[in-house]
């Protein structure tokens, strides 16, 4: 509803409508988009980090950029600590927090190599970063300061928080589960059940498990409980594949986002498609129209009413010309995101 109301308010939104229920953000980044994240408390605000070295805050309902701050190098991930503080990190290896009220930056700390992931764990009240320096670092958001460095077996490619647990996906297809309250040892060491490089991991809102995607058009649904009966429920499926001229083109699945209410999830691939899946009935609920280029990031708003879709070329075919990178905001309906009752 807010999108439609906004269309009446602001003419820029009307010009950017790319569908009845979808529009493109104006004043978007000038290079690829690395991550989109909605504010935890409101579907109105969205953080967008980019390869143009900026992190931008958008007022989605008015389709306007409220704020922008810089890093020295491309930013690979961003996250809200709370509605007024953004955290971000990237190729400059610096972890920054930005006060969205005062528009002030602080460098909280660094990694020894680019920071790939930034997430917040509300249950333990700690910020988590993962880096290509093969470590995960925890940060106390209030001071803010470093609260520990934890070596991983490989470069960190993705991570996700499930309650008080942290699931880390690294190079070499490793998956580690840590207890954020007790980081003295790894709680579970696993290997991805997919045969190809891990691209993204996201935990279920119900914290029972996680979804893992690879570069080979495949997604696995896994459970955290190591007992045999629960592990038997895990499965994987193929997706984001297109058949063209008899050749099957298999695309990386770059992004996953869960709908907080229905526990269904959206996946975005380098094929430019977004699919919504019901993991319990093992069905696809919906596929949106094809976006201009690869989907780099997805984010459902906390109330599940909006889906931010970063359509941004990710250099899968090298440094070639490509459609413009953009962020689309789409209103999603229950029909698209709610499991069918049969």
């Amino acid at each position, binding site marked *: 509803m807010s999108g439609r109301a906004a269309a009446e308010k602001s003419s820029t939104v009307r010009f950017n409508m790319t569908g009845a229920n979808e529009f493109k953000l104006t004043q978007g980044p000038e290079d690829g988009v690395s991550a989109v994240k909605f504010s935890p408390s409101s579907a109105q605000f969205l953080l967008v980090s980019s390869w143009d070295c900026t992190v931008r805050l958008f007022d989605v309902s008015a389709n306007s950029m409220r704020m922008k701050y810089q890093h020295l190098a491309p930013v690979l991930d961003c996250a809200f600590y709370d509605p007024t503080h953004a955290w971000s990190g990237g*190729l400059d290896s610096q972890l920054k927090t930005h006060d969205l009220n005062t528009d002030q930056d602080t460098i909280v700390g660094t990694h020894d*190599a680019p920071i790939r992931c930034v997430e917040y764990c509300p249950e333990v009240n700690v910020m988590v970063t993962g880096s290509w320096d093969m470590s995960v670092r925890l940060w106390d958001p209030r001071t803010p300061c470093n609260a520990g460095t934890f070596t991983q077996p490989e470069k960190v490619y993705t991570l996700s928080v499930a309650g008080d647990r942290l699931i880390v996906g690294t190079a070499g297809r490793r998956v580690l589960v840590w207890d954020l309250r007790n980081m003295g040892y790894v709680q579970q060491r696993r290997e991805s059940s997919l045969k190809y490089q891990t691209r993204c991991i996201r935990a279920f809102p119900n914290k029972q498990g996680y979804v893992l995607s690879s570069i080979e058009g495949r997604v696995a649904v896994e459970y955290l409980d190591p007992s045999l009966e629960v592990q038997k429920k895990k499965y994987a499926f193929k997706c984001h594949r297109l058949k063209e001229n008899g050749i099957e083109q298999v695309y990386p699945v770059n992004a996953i986002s869960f709908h907080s209410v229905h526990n269904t999830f959206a996946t975005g691939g380098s094929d430019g498609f977004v699919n919504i899946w019901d993991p319990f009935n093992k069905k696809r609920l919906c596929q949106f129209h094809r976006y201009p280029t690869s989907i780099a990031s997805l984010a459902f708003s906390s109330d599940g009413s909006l889906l931010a879709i970063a359509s941004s070329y990710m250099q899968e075919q090298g440094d070639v010309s490509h459609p413009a990178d953009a962020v689309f905001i789409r209103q999603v309906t229950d029909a698209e995101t709610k499991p069918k009752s049969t």
Partner: protein
Amino acid sequence: MGRKKKKQLKPWCWYCNRDFDDEKILIQHQKAKHFKCHICHKKLYTGPGLAIHCMQVHKETIDSVPNAIPGRTDIELEIYGMEGIPEKDMQDRRRVLEQKSQESQKKKQNQDDSDEDDDDDDDEAGPSFQQPAAQPQAAYMPPMTQAGMHPGPHAQGMPPAGYAGMPPMLTGIPPMIPGMPPVMPGMPPGMMPMRGMMPPMMPGMPPGMPPLVARPGMPPMAPAAPVTAPGMASRPAVPATQSAASKPLFPSAVQAQQTVSGPSSTTSDSPKVTFPAYTQPSSAPSVAASSSTVAKPPATVTSKPATLTTLSATSKLMHPDEDISLEERRAQLPRYQRLIPRPGQTAAAAASAPPSGAVGGMIPAQQVIPPQQPGMRHPIHGQYGGPPQGMPGYMGGGMPPYGQNAPMVPPYQTGPPGPPMGIRPPVMSPGSRY
């Protein structure tokens, strides 16, 4: 699959003879594989339905059901799930299933006496386990282990012998090893049907195993064994029992056993169905399904990233070949490399680094050197402090480094960077002519 005498009622597809757990799944399978229009991919409900659709919509006739085995391709038969299957084929199927289960029953118990029940189900562990307690054959165990397998009717007691005699067997076996390897695989399956017994046996097995086989690759398998063994046990215990009966512990007994149980063709596949620890090296496929850790395209940690294995001739992976993440690859592009602050490093080294996979490993190393990022000021000092040999490399980079440094070093930009040394008057490298 735990109910008695219900095997023939398990849903199966008449068109391709496949088994399913559930009729719903069977129907989904039929719709997707047999009743799907090859032109528009619409899924119909029955064979005749598909034929009518093709005729009406595409004006095409089809004469056989897609993906059906020969003899089962009749497009006019109206079959939906299990409904409509001709009675004759039902009976055929029942018979085949019965034959199959009877065969395995026979192998395990050996043809002569004792068919306690003609059960189809898999808990042979029950009846056969009780035997040693019930029958005096238990008395055979010690002589069996020491003197070799006693052929004949007592093969029926063999599996429990394999179990009950375990401790003495284990000690008896190590001395036999040199001649034993081909027979070793036969021994553990004796344990296999004792599914109820498996857990207590398992801890006994691995300690016994390592000394038993000096095969390379064994040690890595041994830890995998306890994990995969339950997986193995749940695989048809039926073939396991079959091979157990036919491949007892000692080679002499093998021949004897074979003469006795001649007609039962059991010697065929024992290598396949043995203790996972043994079979890992030889028959990866059977165990690979359960332990998926062994043969995967590795993404090594070396500085040169491994390349991805290609999928197949008909599939193309839309991802660059090196097994590094898309972000790492993008970060190697010169326009981003320039931006990464590296105090202490010559900007030349950063800019002239070719965006190839080999550099992937270098970049993290470079980043590690400067723990703090004070800003762009320091690279200049680095350049001056750097060895003169850095200059040729600098020039190799061409303009971009200059472009980057121009704002920093305006006084030194005395013109086109033709003569390398001319731009850096304060730096007098030995051997340079300026």
